[in-house]
């Protein structure tokens, strides 16, 4: 549905140029909810704005629904943008228009007749649960209501794609949850492909099918949310999922974690579903001649499914470690080796 190839964006500054995107390739499939997560300044906002060409990339192509937007003339581009809805962090509603008039704006811009606009707007307001507010002005709405209006407006022209620019960052956690639920509804009801950018892993876990992690203008990791969550590879992704980095782990372990090492006690990250949680630790200790130190652990809901991660130190020799590893693989527990610690006197070897 969306295909970004070799995207570069350089802002020419007075002193030096700023490279916001340094070669981004991304495919978003029809009907999926795709999340892009990154810190502020990572380039995620520029990336999103390149999809509807609010920002024109310095190099690269942007294809939406098979059309290369970068090749379109201004009028054709405006036409194409009607097929791409967008919502904003601060809602971007017109203060001079009522809720209804705001929602009808995209149709008005497309030159549709008044009667058609009126008949299109009411069902949308009903869909977002705001039919009672239709004659209010934006200043009279709460943040959550305003974002619902934003969503209704973005859907007015029946777009195939919805871009969400930090859509929940200005909202409290409860309202965030309800807006995310609404986005999922939009996705299921209309089959809308959704791309959202955020700096909160919670948002990704809640609604996204797939995620890309952006850092320094590059995609450093991407995949199914579940997989990225259970086995984050890039250091930045680990901080997003709230996992301690090597330095923090060393502090927790009370010994230097050698990420490249191969001898000594292994430090593993185990990833598992809720059902497997209890048995994993017990089984490891009972079946094998090893001691297990739990370093950190968490249970999180990803896409409504509980997933657990556990960082453990295996006090065992290499052979036992290998056996344990085989066992865990066989029961479907994901194992990632974070490194090794050398301990004098504690290791069984």
């Amino acid at each position, binding site marked *: 549905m969306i295909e970004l190839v070799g995207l570069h964006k350089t802002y020419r500054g007075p002193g030096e140029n700023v490279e916001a995107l340094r070669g981004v390739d991304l495919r978003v499939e029809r009907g999926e909810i795709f999340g892009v997560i990154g810190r502020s300044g990572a380039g995620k906002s520029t990336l999103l704005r390149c999809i*509807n060409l*609010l920002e024109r990339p310095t190099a690269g192509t942007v294809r939406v629904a098979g059309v290369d937007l970068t090749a379109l003339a201004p009028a054709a581009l*405006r036409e194409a*943008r009607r097929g791409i809805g967008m919502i*904003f962090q*601060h809602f971007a509603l017109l203060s001079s228009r009522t809720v209804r008039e705001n929602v009808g704006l995209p149709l008005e811009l497309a030159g549709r007749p008044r009667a058609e606009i009126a008949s299109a707007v009411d069902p949308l307001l009903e869909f977002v649960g705001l039919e009672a507010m239709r004659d209010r002005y934006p*200043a009279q709405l709460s943040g959550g209501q305003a974002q619902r209006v934003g969503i209704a407006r973005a859907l007015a022209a029946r777009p195939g794609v919805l871009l969400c620019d930090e859509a929940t960052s200005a909202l409290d956690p409860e309202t965030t949850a309800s807006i995310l639920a609404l986005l999922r509804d939009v996705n299921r009801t209309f089959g809308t492909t959704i791309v959202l950018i955020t700096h909160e892993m919670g948002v990704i876990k809640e609604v996204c099918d797939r995620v890309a992690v952006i850092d320094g203008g590059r995609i450093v990791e991407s995949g199914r949310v579940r997989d990225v969550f259970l086995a984050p590879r890039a250091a930045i992704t680990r901080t997003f999922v709230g996992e301690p980095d090597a330095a923090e782990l060393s502090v927790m372990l009370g010994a230097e974690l050698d990420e490249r090492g191969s001898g000594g006690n292994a430090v593993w990250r185990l990833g598992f579903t809720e059902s497997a949680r209890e048995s994993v630790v017990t089984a490891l200790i009972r079946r094998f001649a090893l001691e297990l130190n739990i370093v950190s652990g968490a249970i999180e809901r990803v896409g409504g499914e509980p997933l657990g991660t556990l960082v453990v130190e295996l006090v065992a020799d290499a052979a036992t470690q290998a056996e344990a590893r085989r066992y865990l693989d066989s029961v479907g527990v994901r194992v990632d080796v974070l490194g090794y610690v050398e301990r004098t006197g504690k290791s069984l070897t």
Partner: protein
Amino acid sequence: MWNELASLLPEALWETAQMVTVSSLVALALGIPLGVVLVATDRGGIAPNPALSRVLGAIVNATRSVPFIILMVAIIPFTRLIAQTSIGTTAAMVPLSIAAIPFLGRLVEAAIREVPRTLIEAARAMGASPLQIVVKVLLPEARPGIVAAFTITVISSIGYSAIAGAIGAGGLGALGIQYGYERFDTPVMVATVVVLIAIVQLIQFAGDRLARRLGHR
């Protein structure tokens, strides 16, 4: 004295009203588009045209820096061309309009700049053309600010019309200066000033109310 005042004041008021109304309407018709063009053609605007923007900005600044009394004299040939005369109430409307257009233009420019950029971005994302952005987003969103700007323009035109009065345009300013100041007729001067104060208060009050009603913030 009171009889004299009763006959002079309404006439002067009418002349002032004519001058201010015409120049304000001309400013409305040309100052608002000027303000829009100043914003739109600016670097990073919705229809960037740095050359046009710079030229317009320079003209606006030049007009605004010439003292009104000098402006009046300087454009006499132009005034004669438009009004067929260079003295009197009708003639004064020309320099009053010329002064009011860039004045309102700059204020409208400032009012439009207050519209959050994200609204322009949202409109572009919806496929709005530059003209649609002006008509559907910028002008409606800046309406309270534009009303306030117009109020200030009308009031400043009243002030300028008094200066025009000093060189034969008639109106309240002329009345105050000729009868009150030059003939030491204090009651006439006071009466004129009181009427001016009342008018300005009234216009400011009406403008504020309208701006508040239009602003759904």
